[in-house]
């Protein structure tokens, strides 16, 4: 029954008593039991807590009490978002035993809306990665091909939604970490505008870049989730005090003719041909819906990676300085002659994986005396120019359209060279740099080696214009059926070669 359930679908079934909330949660938990060892999406699940919450929902329904907009909906949370139950490990040995004494605003808001937090999902360590291979607790797999990555860093969340191990999930996005896994897994992923969603309880990676956002099966589900998550929070001074629109009720509202900008830099010859083909098909779909397509020039977008890979590691080196083995997290075994400095250097060397160490080193380097102006200050100047270029683009069009990623999901171990992994983010970093909103939606498939692999297109709108972003995304979804396809996880061809 809930093989293809959306949020309204699940809530409708609960209201009509086709299922109790406890039965619904049990079906998700059974699927997790069956599939998680192959997919490694979840690092932790909360069956008892989930059933208890579901039972409360059932009691409310029986008593005729009002229920919240997410009542009974099983949602997974990326493990770099703090819960005050279970562990928050961020895919890191450093936090392997960490239990947080406080809750994140995002999770509090979901639970206040009646959602059932079913588990925490695997991610690249501290959000640093584009494949979920840099997870201390094992790589997550792509449900469309178990030998390929689900993307990252929110790969566990993306795979869990795709495999229907949860109805929706939270991820975080610093340079593409929600959108790229959504594209690789054939689902919807949203990076809200910077400041749209509170970062209180999101373990900090790049404080001027990070946002929590939803991964879901449909645009409407993502819009519903954002409506619950968004809004001012006194615990996060970067969280904007701006009203939250009614994203869902307006999602099918026809608007004035839409102008869609396609930056010529986004249809690069370096992209997989199948990716470019899907983008061209989507342009045709938008044209057929009456949109005006405008060719845009975004020359500074080509500096997105260079800008991002100065700013993000710099901020990360500062944010990860707190992991010192003193107040929480891993503390190395020390010898009699070891002093406080050894406590820091040994705990950190043991606790952090190589990608995190690399980024801390890179960030420390670009901030160090003699290099600060040449790299960090310059990157912040280019940041302003990138933002200004995007602001000019949005004067000509309502949204930018292009691929989310230059390729489809790549194989496990394929991008061992760090720079080759960083180049995956070529289309996603500018949204974080400029603080604008962006969504990845399923746009078709590429066939490789007998497997169908999803392609995602990305729609970017100006800051705090998520309402337009959702409408434009919904226009495409309503005219296509890519989002209805699901991998056949019971198909031997998909699951045959799982190496453990």
């Amino acid at each position, binding site marked *: 029954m809930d093989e293809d359930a959306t949020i309204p679908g699940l809530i409708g079934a609960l209201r009509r008593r086709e299922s109790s909330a406890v039965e619904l949660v049990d079906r998700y938990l059974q699927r997790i039991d069956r599939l998680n060892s192959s997919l490694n999406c979840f690092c932790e699940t909360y069956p008892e807590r989930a059933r208890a919450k579901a039972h409360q929902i059932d009691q409310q329904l029986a008593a005729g009490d009002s229920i919240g907009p997410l009542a009974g909906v099983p949602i997974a949370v990326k493990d770099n978002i703090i819960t005050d139950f279970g562990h928050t490990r961020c895919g890191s040995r450093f936090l392997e035993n960490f239990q947080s004494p406080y809750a994140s605003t995002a999770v509090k808001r979901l639970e206040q809306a009646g959602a059932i937090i079913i588990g925490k999902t695997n991610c690249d360590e501290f959000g640093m990665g584009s494949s979920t291979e840099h997870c201390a607790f094992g790589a997550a797999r792509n449900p469309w091909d178990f030998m390929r990555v689900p993307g990252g860093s929110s790969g566990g969340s993306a795979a869990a939604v795709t495999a229907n191990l949860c109805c929706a999930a939270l991820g975080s996005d610093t340079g593409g970490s929600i959108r790229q896994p959504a594209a690789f897994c054939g689902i919807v992923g949203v990076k809200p505008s910077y400041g749209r969603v509170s970062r209180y309880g999101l373990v900090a990676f790049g404080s001027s870049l990070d946002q929590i956002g939803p991964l879901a099966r449909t645009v409407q589900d993502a819009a519903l989730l954002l409506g619950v998550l968004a809004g001012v929070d006194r615990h996060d001074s970067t969280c904007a005090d701006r009203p939250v629109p009614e994203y869902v009720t307006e999602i099918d509202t026809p608007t004035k003719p839409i102008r869609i900008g396609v930056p010529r830099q986004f249809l690069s010859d370096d992209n997989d041909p199948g990716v470019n083909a899907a983008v061209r098909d989507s342009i045709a779909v938008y044209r057929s819906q009456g949109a005006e397509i405008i060719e845009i020039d975004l020359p500074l977008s080509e500096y997105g990676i*260079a800008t991002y890979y*100065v700013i993000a590691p710099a901020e990360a080196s500062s944010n990860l*300085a707190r992991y010192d083995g003193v107040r929480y997290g891993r503390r190395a075994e020390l010898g009699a002659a070891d002093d*406080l*400095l050894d406590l820091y250097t040994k705990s950190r060397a043991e606790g952090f994986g190589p990608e995190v160490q690399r980024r801390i080193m890179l960030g420390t380097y670009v901030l160090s005396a003699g290099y600060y102006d040449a790299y960090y200050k310059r990157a912040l100047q280019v940041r302003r120019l990138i933002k200004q270029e995007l602001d000019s683009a949005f004067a000509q069009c309502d949204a930018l359209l292009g691929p989310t990623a230059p390729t489809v999901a790549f194989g496990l171990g394929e991008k061992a060279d760090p720079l080759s992994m960083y180049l995956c983010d070529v289309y996603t970093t500018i949204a974080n740099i400029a603080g604008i909103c962006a969504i990845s939606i399923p746009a078709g498939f590429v066939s490789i080696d007998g497997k169908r692999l999803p392609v995602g297109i990305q729609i970017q709108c100006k800051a705090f214009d998520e309402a337009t972003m959702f409408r434009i995304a919904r226009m495409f979804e309503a005219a296509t059926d890519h989002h209805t396809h699901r991998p056949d996880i019971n198909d031997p061809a998909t699951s045959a070669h799982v190496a453990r």
Partner: protein
Amino acid sequence: MAELLNLDEVRHVAKLARLNLSREQLQQYRRELSSVVAHIAKLNEVDVQGVEPMAQPHDLTNRLDEDEVVPPMPVEQVLGAAPAVKGQFLAVPKVFGGEDNR
């Protein structure tokens, strides 16, 4: 092949970053960082004359909160995740008293 960063510089960065790295790790990070730094040098192509650096995307300035007294998190909760505790204190190796000034 990217020009290699100076090994002493890499060692210095590791010290600043408080990372205890082996010789092999230093060499590996030296190679990998050199390749990334070579890519980042692309930023030199951009004319940034007179451009104000932008640290965060909406040019936010200090947002002040009401000075409202709320109960703090209880000390036991704060210390609950600590690796080593002595009473109400975090226990760490000796901070002062060593001969060399690091």
